[in-house]
């Protein structure tokens, strides 16, 4: 649990670790039934597909106006000088 929480950048309390451990055990036990169905002749389906040209999702490679610096930073918890600010990454 701690390893997965680490991968997910998620801090969990002791209580949460115990609770999610039990929940995930139960859910994964249910998920195990996937092994009961034969999929040896099946291609994985990543997306819903329908008949369309291969280029259907392409658009003209033209510049479009973006949000702009000010609007993009508007919801930042901490910003300054046109940047998102974060705690120090590399200690000198």
């Amino acid at each position, binding site marked *: 649990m701690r390893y997965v929480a680490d991968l997910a950048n998620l801090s969990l309390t002791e209580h949460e670790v115990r609770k*999610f451990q039990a929940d995930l055990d139960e859910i994964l036990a249910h998920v195990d039934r996937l092994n009961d169905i034969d*999929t040896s002749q099946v291609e*994985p389906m990543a997306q819903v597909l329908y008949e369309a040209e291969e280029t259907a999702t392409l658009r003209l490679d033209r510049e479009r106006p973006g949000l702009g610096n000010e609007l993009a930073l508007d919801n930042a918890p901490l910003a300054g000088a046109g940047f998102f600010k974060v705690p120090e990454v590399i200690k000198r």
Partner: protein
Amino acid sequence: MAAVDVSSLSIGQIREGLSRRTFTSVELTAAALAYAREQNSKTNAYLEFAEERALAAAQKVDETLARGENPGPLAGVPVAVKDVIVTKGVRTTCGSKLLANYIPPYDATAVERLEQAGGIIIGKTNCDEFAMGSSTENSAFGPVRNPHAPDRVPGGSSGGSAAAVAQGTAAVALGSDTGGSIRQPASFCGVVGVTPTYGRVSRYGLTAFASSLDHIGPLARNVRDAALLLQVIAGRDPLDSTSADVPVPDYLAHLDGEVKGLKLGLPREYLKDLTSETGDLIAKAVDKLKTLGCEVRDISLPATDYAIACYYVIATAEASSNLARYDGVRYTMRSASSESLSDMYRNTRGEGFGAECKRRIMLGTYVLSAGYYDAYYLKAQKVRALVARDFTNAFSQVDAIVAPVSPFPAFKIGEKVDDPMAMYLSDIYTITGDLAGVPCMSVPCGKTREGLPVGMQILAKHFDEPRMFRLADAFERAGGAS
């Protein structure tokens, strides 16, 4: 002017009232806002009212009418928008503490289109956090109460939108559906809820939960209004590369039609675990469809038994990736107590996300992690192909499928909240439609002895919304199952 009773007006009645000058758009909007605020103390359906924006939009409708021009098919119609759909300048929380103060800098395409059509967005509706849940109990801002029974859930995750339409504070609403989040609350609240074909409506501006499964769709008090709202929001959008470049038919032209001779499939896997009252109502609905001239036959969708397992692998895997963006850098909330960057990520997410989001992030991260990808994620994608194949096979024999929406009617608030597996299992009949990407909807079928609404589900093949609406409309006009 006498106070406008907004609680039962259909889109057609609003159009008539505006053209006859019975009320102006501003008067109707003010009345809708006042009524919604008053009702909200009972249901908690709304998280935010968009008063300024609504009145400005209404003013525009009145001015357009005064010039003798056409203000659009949704002119003056009060619309509630689920709070996972962004609205420029109007707080959009996704039901999460993490976004409690988030003010989007742009509008979702669906929002833009419905306003261009004259629709009036009166507020943002409560939902499960990031649309993850089946009861709206996972909102950081308190649960929504079912207008038909205040001690019960409205369903989820679009519970606020369903309750808003059911209590009459909005004529129509936008919801989102990833595993049943439009149809199940529509069923629990006795309204119409439509999950269109995957790609039919642009998701630009819909906060991503599971991108290969997410849909935006309408909730309404009747089939006609739902079809009209879909008409307005459907169609290709260059801002969403997954939106389908398929012409949008005239849905209303397909209503009021005959359904005689329509071949309907009743999947036997969907009838196994129903409560007796839900089962009785579905049986009566099937009888009613037969009296309307439909031919109903028993069909099988054999992969159904694996659908929940398949869905909760794929949806959580995608969710764990999509929710990675909430890291304390860009979106309003940051943990105060962090010295390093990685602590800030961890603590912000730990303090910000509610239990269900954390559970799904953990599950999704696990099934994608090294050594487990093939066993879980890839396997689930293959099973998904089998679920989709079931529908392709079925639609080679029948025109549409009818089924229950949920095994049971609205449950009590708190009843399933500590049992995630029981909550997940309640999505059994709705997640298959999302996995296959076919259009599906819930139409009111009748009520239990206790007065709890039950919905009937109709599923059709990709882009066959016209036939789905025609059947739903005929069923509705025939009085549902009764």
